């Protein structure tokens, strides 16, 4: 049990993660590019790598299947996994926002007696509504959240925004910024002790790379 297992997200974040990690680890060539393999194990490479759905990465870490993982802060806020959050990797930067139809002010939106908010993030949305004294309905959707206000399913949305282009194309604009989001390094709460030394030195090297960028 000398080697560490690392859980990486597939999808958009994967390439950025691989680029960052190859500055710290002797990243194998076969793992670059569009491999569809979900588990990577090789005698010449001291780590085992899992590729999981971006929303699941921290769950593999919480249950100890992986010792370390990379996951978006949005997922940590939504799932509240019992893991150690060790480092902001500075990649996958975006903002969690409340957005509504163009021209509608925050005051106008909040004054509505009953608003409907569509989101992929029910826990974050519920917390935001409670903290801001908003009452209303929450509609849990899986994707293309911008469609909901455009078609009248919801008054507003809570979602991640990076460039704001999708919002603009769907005649939406940011009403309120909820929190900044980026990829984080997380650790299992048992491995952080049993493999603490290996983790601490990996964390130091990674921190150097992240802060030099």
């Amino acid at each position, binding site marked *: *049990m000398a080697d560490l297992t690392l859980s990486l997200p597939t999808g958009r974040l994967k390439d950025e993660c691989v680029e960052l990690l190859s500055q710290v680890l002797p990243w194998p060539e076969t793992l670059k590019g569009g491999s569809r393999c979900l588990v990577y194990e090789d005698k010449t490479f001291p780590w085992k790598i899992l590729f999981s759905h971006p929303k699941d990465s921290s*769950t593999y870490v*919480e*249950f*100890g*299947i992986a010792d370390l993982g990379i996951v978006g802060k949005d997922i940590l806020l939504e*799932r*509240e996994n*019992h*893991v*150690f*959050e*060790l*480092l*902001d990797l500075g990649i996958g930067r975006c903002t969690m926002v409340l957005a509504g139809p163009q021209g509608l002010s925050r005051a106008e939106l909040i004054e509505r007696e009953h608003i409907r908010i569509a989101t992929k993030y029910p*826990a974050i949305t519920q917390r935001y509504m409670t903290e801001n004294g908003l009452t209303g309905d929450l509609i849990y959707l899986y994707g293309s959240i911008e469609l909901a206000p455009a078609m009248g399913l919801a008054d507003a949305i809570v979602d991640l925004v990076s460039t704001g282009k999708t919002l603009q194309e769907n005649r939406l604009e940011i009403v309120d910024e909820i929190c900044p989001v980026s990829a*984080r390094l997380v*650790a*299992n*709460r*048992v*491995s*952080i*002790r*049993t*493999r*603490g030394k290996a*983790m*601490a030195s990996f964390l130091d090297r990674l921190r150097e790379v992240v802060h030099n960028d």
Partner: protein
Amino acid sequence: METVFGMKDAFPHETRKKREIEEALRRIFQQWGYEEVETPTVELFKTFLPTMEDEESERLYRFVNREGKLACLRPEFTTSVARMFSGRAARELPTTRVFYDGKIFRLPTSPFRSETELTQVGLENFGRSKPFVDAEIIAMAAVSLREAGIREYELDIAHVGFVHYLLDTLSVNDETKKHLRRYIRNRDFNSVKEVLQSTLLDSDTTSALMLEQLPFLRGKKPELESLRDSFPAQSLFAKSADHVIQVWNILEDLGIDNGVFFNLGLIRDFEYYTGVIFEGFSAYSGSPLLTGGRYDGLFHRF
């Protein structure tokens, strides 16, 4: 027929295995002079309020009983046992060592989890906060892990005084300390570092550096001794370290210090601990197997 979500059956092979472990633990507890007690499955909700944070009390199975009082299924045993023995003078206590073995009930921490009914086997030792009392409990923890058949178990010990002292000696306001405490509890050390670097003029003080490194400050007795010596002898840190070292010496004498470590980053979910805290685990399981600690003042709450 369906079962209630989160509740499950145990078939013979699983039940057999569970009973074997329970019996091994009971045998050990009785051998060391602990006597078994039972507490009611249903208690008044207000019994648990003084020892629980809001978010924890929201996880209780609550209902209104026949008298219109808010009742709940027990979420743990410690509070019930304290209620059971409170109101008696120390010399009137029939025993100071008790154990229990039963089901506890908690609503899942998030919609993504399901488990709600768990078996908890545990023990309580009512006595003054002396190193030998804490050492006895930690010895029981080590023996329990061994008897339960856990391969290569490890046992981390800490003292709540460590983090208290490090926070107290930071030159930041109370509001910031409150945030830091919350981040530490949530194991968010990225935020701990960010807060320290943005609020402190000098973020290179020993306390700040140690708080940032908390999850990795783990080791054996000589390392704890040298950490202790880097703080003033009368400080809470040095006194807490002294207490842990005394406990450790006893464990060494008993020959059960194998697998014992100090861990400054040990984080307990319950707020009522006041002294030594500990956690047992194995590299073969992703979550802790056993937890415990010292709490003074729990009796006085009743």
